[in-house]
């Protein structure tokens, strides 16, 4: 069993008691909600006429269903309008702070939590969305929950949970030009597998993570869940503190100094014991692209599509299923694969630094006439900041579409969808069958710079040749 890790410190700090089932009852320090997974939870509460236990520890926004072309109300999609109205009614009734589009603070829940300084080291953070692991970038324990659990947090501010094991993942070396946080996490998932993290929290460390910005750490922690790990985190350090300073909901002045003392205290200690340790090195890393139907089915851009025989017999059925769906041929080159759509956005890669990387490629270039390209900022604030830097101009002059903030084409609960078997170079997190809204649509996950280069070329290309 692990000991003296950040996971152990934060878990123990929030443990209320052990329940008769043997599960731990954990206090949830920050609860984030959105329109998709909360209405049924509020309905359960309202039916019983129960109040929320700690309404000031829940914050709401709207992201999954919001259209990104026009965000005018009422939304054209009546279902989207109904969901939004339900959220509005619930937050009003229970006095939950709500960052809607009129606040200029709306955005993808995992983008605005950190941006507003709500996300802080040492917290337990829950949200009815699996990518809540993103918040682990700050040295918090962030994890996705189901709707019944959302109702538990609303009513008690606690959850019944099983303690996880802790796997330390060291990534050493340095990221060279054209290689990004996205490549790091795709590599980790490729090596450990999509179910390798079941039952584990991932602690990320080593040279690469020490050097990373908060945006980069968020990209990696975001996709921990794609490797099966419900929680992924990085120990807080000066980079974390610097990011948080002067954020709206972060402690200010002397309180910030006090907070730093606490934040330092919860980090893993040198004598920490892990249930497992894995060490990787950037020597083996090149720009990564997924080729199949799980985020673990990825390959370097200069490789060929893997032959079926390369996989263990137990994996071959899935590999064949992937080839059948994706319509590629094993052993053909990855580079040059035609791309119909490019999506730059999602809670994985829609932050200002991601947009800058994409703009850096698109500057003074034109998007290929066969490639529809949409760029979707993660929040209204990022949209404003990007526009202040002129990034929007770079995108639109290149022929890409510049949209409003939301989840957009990551999961197609809004008008942004693939059509038929279109191939999409996407900076999102899931390449599942049908994920982007067409039951035959094909998703290739990659970094924003790789996606931008694919937009110009109209096919997959090695971004290192563009820098």
């Amino acid at each position, binding site marked *: 069993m692990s000991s003296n890790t950040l996971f152990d410190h934060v878990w123990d700090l929030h443990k209320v008691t052990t329940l008769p089932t043997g599960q731990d009852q954990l206090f949830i320090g920050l609860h984030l909600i959105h329109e998709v997974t909360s209405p049924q939870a509020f309905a359960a509460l309202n039916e019983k006429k129960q109040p929320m236990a700690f309404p000031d520890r829940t914050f709401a926004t709207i992201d999954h269903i919001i259209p990104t072309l026009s965000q005018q109300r009422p939304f054209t999609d009546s*279902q989207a309008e109904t969901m939004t109205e339900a959220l509005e009614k619930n937050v009003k009734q229970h006095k939950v702070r709500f960052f809607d589009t009129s606040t200029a603070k709306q955005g993808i829940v995992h983008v605005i939590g950190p941006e507003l300084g709500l996300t802080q080291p040492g917290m337990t953070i829950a949200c009815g969305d699996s990518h809540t692991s993103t918040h682990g970038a700050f040295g918090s324990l962030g994890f996705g929950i189901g709707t019944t659990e959302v109702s538990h947090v609303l009513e008690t501010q606690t959850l*019944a949970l*099983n303690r996880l094991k802790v796997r330390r993942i060291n990534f050493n070396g340095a990221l060279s030009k054209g290689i990004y946080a996205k490549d790091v996490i795709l590599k980790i998932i490729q090596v450990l597998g999509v179910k390798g993290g079941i039952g584990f929290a991932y602690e990320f460390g080593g040279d690469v993570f020490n050097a990373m910005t908060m945006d980069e750490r968020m990209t990696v922690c975001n996709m921990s869940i794609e490797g099966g790990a419900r929680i992924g985190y990085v120990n807080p350090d000066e980079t974390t503190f610097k990011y948080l300073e002067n954020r709206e909901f972060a402690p200010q002045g002397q309180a910030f100094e006090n907070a730093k003392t606490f934040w330092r205290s919860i980090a893993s200690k040198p004598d920490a014991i892990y249930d497992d340790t894995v060490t990787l090195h950037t020597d083996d890393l090149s720009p990564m692209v997924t080729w199949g139907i799980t985020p673990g089915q990825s390959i370097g851009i200069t490789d060929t599509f893997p032959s079926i025989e390369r996989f263990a017999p137990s*994996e071959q059925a899935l590999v064949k299923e992937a080839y059948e769906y994706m319509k590629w041929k094993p052993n053909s080159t990855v580079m040059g694969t035609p791309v119909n759509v490019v999506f730059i956005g999602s809670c994985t890669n829609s932050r200002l630094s991601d947009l800058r990387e994409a703009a850096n490629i698109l500057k003074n270039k034109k998007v290929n006439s066969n490639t529809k390209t949409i760029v979707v900022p993660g929040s209204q604030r990022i949209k404003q900041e990007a526009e202040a830097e002129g990034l929007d101009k770079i995108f639109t002059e290149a022929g890409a579409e510049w949209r409003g903030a939301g989840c957009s084409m990551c999961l197609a609960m809004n008008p942004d969808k693939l059509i038929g078997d279109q191939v999409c170079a996407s900076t999102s997190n899931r390449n599942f069958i049908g994920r982007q809204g067409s039951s035959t649509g094909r998703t290739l996950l990659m970094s924003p710079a790789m996606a931008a280069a694919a937009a110009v070329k109209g096919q997959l290309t090695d971004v290192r040749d563009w820098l």
Partner: protein
Amino acid sequence: MKHIQFSGRALPMRGDDIDTDRIIPARFLKEITFEKMGEYLFYDARFNDDHSPKNHLLNDPIYKGSSFLIVGQNFGCGSSREHAPQAIKRYGFDVIIGESFAEIFAGNCKSLGVPAVTLPRADIETLWAEIEANPQLMLHLNLETKQLIADDSVFEIDIVESRRVAFLEGTWDSLGLLKQNKDLVQKKAQELPYLHFGAK
């Protein structure tokens, strides 16, 4: 209500890494109740774009009325959407038996009173083959003895112990347990440093 024993016929769903988007595509999540989720189970795998049925086990009358779903590894990976186990339960499945389950999915199943129990790969393969050969095969799961019985075969199932206890004691929806500790929760809120940084 205690959930100790289950009996029924089973549907053998081959395949690994079956994700929540496949179990229920995201466009069906745009409803503010779970009522109709059963209709949407595996929708894109079961139906063509014109809503005509595809060749899929869930459309095969021989498996109609099955209450056990037998799956492979990492079933339910992906999103935290409770709509996925809601769809499975509302369609009529009471038990899911697989090689392994995604963490959030398994927890959601527990919240709904649906045991997601595991067996080694070889046993899953045996079950798939036996059910395919005889779709009328009756399965009997006993969470007390941790045994699954199919004809003359006895399989030793595994399940996270706290979940097993919750099913046996009828506390699979944890709310009742959580609410008993109101005072301890208030005390915890007083102790957490970050809830008081702002305080003078």
